[in-house]
């Protein structure tokens, strides 16, 4: 990871246009969120409520999943369990195969990105078309999402216009957003009618009723889940909530935090296949529940908070690091603060532990998280997991970020700073011989002057000024 991440950071920071574009986009998202949470007290109360709902669900996750599965079976939804993304891909493929599916349309789903589902199915000769506009754009460009809510956020209007012009030369060039949207809509309508299956993600699973909730703005989610005769939903096992009444507060937090909308244009509640006498809806509905490391995260009382996430992206929108880099630089499915706690746990600290270090712990993410995930605290915890050596706990890659030189330096520092007499001598010497200390401090002094050590430390001056220590 190290070299890889460093290279992509340097590349992203060198792209001035991208950075300006991101700054404008983030500023606007931050403003929109603020505008729909005018009352601070109400916001904080709602965040506490959201945290409680998600915390409650996680506290009885196994039971709720069982209850949910039982309701689904009653409702006629087939539930499948996948421990790994490979298993999940195979399950989806087998369902498609037994239904003789050649073409499918997809609604937006980050879990399907986690699975690499499109590539997997395309290799098997099944055409997958992304129907969310943002996903449609990046699929055309052969890219991955750079944001979990707005996957094509990194692309400017002009870039999208050029992309459309290149991919659809028959359609006249335009950089008008409405015209571009109309082009995509025209293509997608056709595909919806032809598709043998629709694949979607899920925002909330309701254990009480066996309902799959899907939040979206474009109607493509509703089309994907109702027009084709087969619907397959894929999602993570953590998405379950206990009861129907849990959904409205979470939905309100989700849409406000994500895009500053009081509610999205569409909110789909899917409870099963078409019933006798109904005129639309799929003949068959399947749900694939993916673990992919979530059980391991669940096993740790503190890190479990990671799973409260409702994927609004507010932490990303408020992150000064993401604003500088964009999503691709992270090299992971989930970018930004949520990605920096989720991905190292999912993929192991050895490979992705660096992401937990790539934060100033400024706290902007934790401040806006609608379910109060203490992201900075968890980043700190993962830094510890990366260097600890006691071999307890569940986190994969524990201790693998420990470097000998670094641990020696901290050991030396702690020996000194825990011995006041020795420390006093060291500080006084540093002040006395400050002119002899190096003025070039590696990368620090590439853009900054070295900090100046005082002629006399405070501990000497206080004595002169008559401050006592008792």
């Amino acid at each position, binding site marked *: 990871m190290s070299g890889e991440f460093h290279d992509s950071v340097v590349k992203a920071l060198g792209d001035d246009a991208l950075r300006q574009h991101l700054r404008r986009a983030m500023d606007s998202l931050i403003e929109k969120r603020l505008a729909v949470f005018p009352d601070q007290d109400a916001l904080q109360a709602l965040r506490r409520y959201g945290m409680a709902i998600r915390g409650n669900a996680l506290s009885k996750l196994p039971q709720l999943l069982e209850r949910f599965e039982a309701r689904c079976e009653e409702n006629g939804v087939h539930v499948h369990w996948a421990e790994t993304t490979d298993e999940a891909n195979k399950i989806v493929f087998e369902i498609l195969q037994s239904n003789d599916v050649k073409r499918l349309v997809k609604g937006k789903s980050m879990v399907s990105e986690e699975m690499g589902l499109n590539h997997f199915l395309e290799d098997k000769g099944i055409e997958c078309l992304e129907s969310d506009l943002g996903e449609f754009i990046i699929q055309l460009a052969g890219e991955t999402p750079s944001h979990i809510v707005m996957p094509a956020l990194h692309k400017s209007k002009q870039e999208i216009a050029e992309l459309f012009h290149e991919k659809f030369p028959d359609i006249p060039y335009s950089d008008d957003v409405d015209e571009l949207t109309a082009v995509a809509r025209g293509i997608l309508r056709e595909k919806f009618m032809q598709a043998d299956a629709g694949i979607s993600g899920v925002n909330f699973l309701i254990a009480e009723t066996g309902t799959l909730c899907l939040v979206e703005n474009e109607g493509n989610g509703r089309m994907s889940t109702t027009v084709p005769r087969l619907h397959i939903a894929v999602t993570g096992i953590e998405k379950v909530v206990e009861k129907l009444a849990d959904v409205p507060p979470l939905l309100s937090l989700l849409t406000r935090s994500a895009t500053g909308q009081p509610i999205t244009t569409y909110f789909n509640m899917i409870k099963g296949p078409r019933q006798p006498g109904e005129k639309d809806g799929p003949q068959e509905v399947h749900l694939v529940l993916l673990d992919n490391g979530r059980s391991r995260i669940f096993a740790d009382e503190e890190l479990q908070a990671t799973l409260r996430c409702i994927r609004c992206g507010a932490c990303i929108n408020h992150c000064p690091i993401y604003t500088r*880099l964009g999503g691709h630089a992270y090299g992971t499915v989930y970018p930004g603060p949520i990605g920096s706690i989720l991905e190292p746990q999912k993929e192991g600290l050895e490979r992705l532990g660096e992401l937990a270090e790539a934060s*100033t712990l400024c706290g902007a993410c934790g*401040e806006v998280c609608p379910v109060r995930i203490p992201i900075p605290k968890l980043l700190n915890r993962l830094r510890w*997991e990366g260097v600890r050596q006691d071999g307890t706990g569940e986190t994969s890659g524990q201790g693998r970020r420990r470097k000998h030189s670094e641990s020696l330096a901290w050991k030396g*520092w702690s020996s000194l700073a825990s011995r006041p007499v020795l420390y006093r001598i060291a500080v006084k010497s540093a002040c006395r011989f400050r002119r002899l200390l190096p003025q070039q401090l590696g*990368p620090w002094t590439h853009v900054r002057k070295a900090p100046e050590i005082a002629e006399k*430390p405070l501990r000497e*001056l206080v004595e002169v000024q008559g401050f006592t*220590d*008792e």
Partner: protein
Amino acid sequence: MPRTVYFFATCLVDMFYPNAGLAGMALIKREGLKVIYPRNQTCCGQPAYNAGYRDEARKVAAAQLDLFPGNHPIVVPSGSCAGMMKHHYPDLFFGKPEHAKAVDVADRVWELTGFLTDVLNIKLKDLGEPLRVALHTSCSTRREMGMAHAGESLLAQLDAVEVVEQTHKAECCGFGGSFAVKQPEISSAMVRDKTEALRATEASLVVSQDSGCLMNIGGAIEHQGEGPKTQHIAEFLWERTRER
């Protein structure tokens, strides 16, 4: 109102900004309180804690726990060190023999500007010349300690000081302790944006509650050439209000 406080100056103030420490103590003393400077203080342990080295952090933090035997507030001229002591000591010592002591210390910790406004309700009389000043409230003071109002209200009391606001004022300056060393490119990009925003205000002085931010912002401005001076807010408040 407390009669006595402990002053935990922090390692950076000790070595790099001793005048800020003296000023902080003087501001409290002028309000009629006794200020105790425990001479055996070293560092709160935050650098190692944020680098993931919790055993090493705990060893250093443990050496501070006995410095505050009286039941007096502990005032810290830094949001991040105050945050470490107030919000992370209880976790750091969880399940350890020192836990009760750590919780007791945590309960008494105040960030300096918050202590001046929320506890002492200090009234300042500005004796200085007209000056344009920008405030960079450190992220820990703002978010972890919830004391963004304190610095703003203290500066607002200074009649001849015009406080100007930089764009993206709540955004991090890019210091982040070991972050600046481990991710120097991102850190540099952040401090460049921060200094640009501060320069655009045409302030002649930038003040902050945290030495780390001052080192980062001040160091960058000096490296870039001419620009606003930087100073710890305690030192600035003391200089503006000191009877000579």
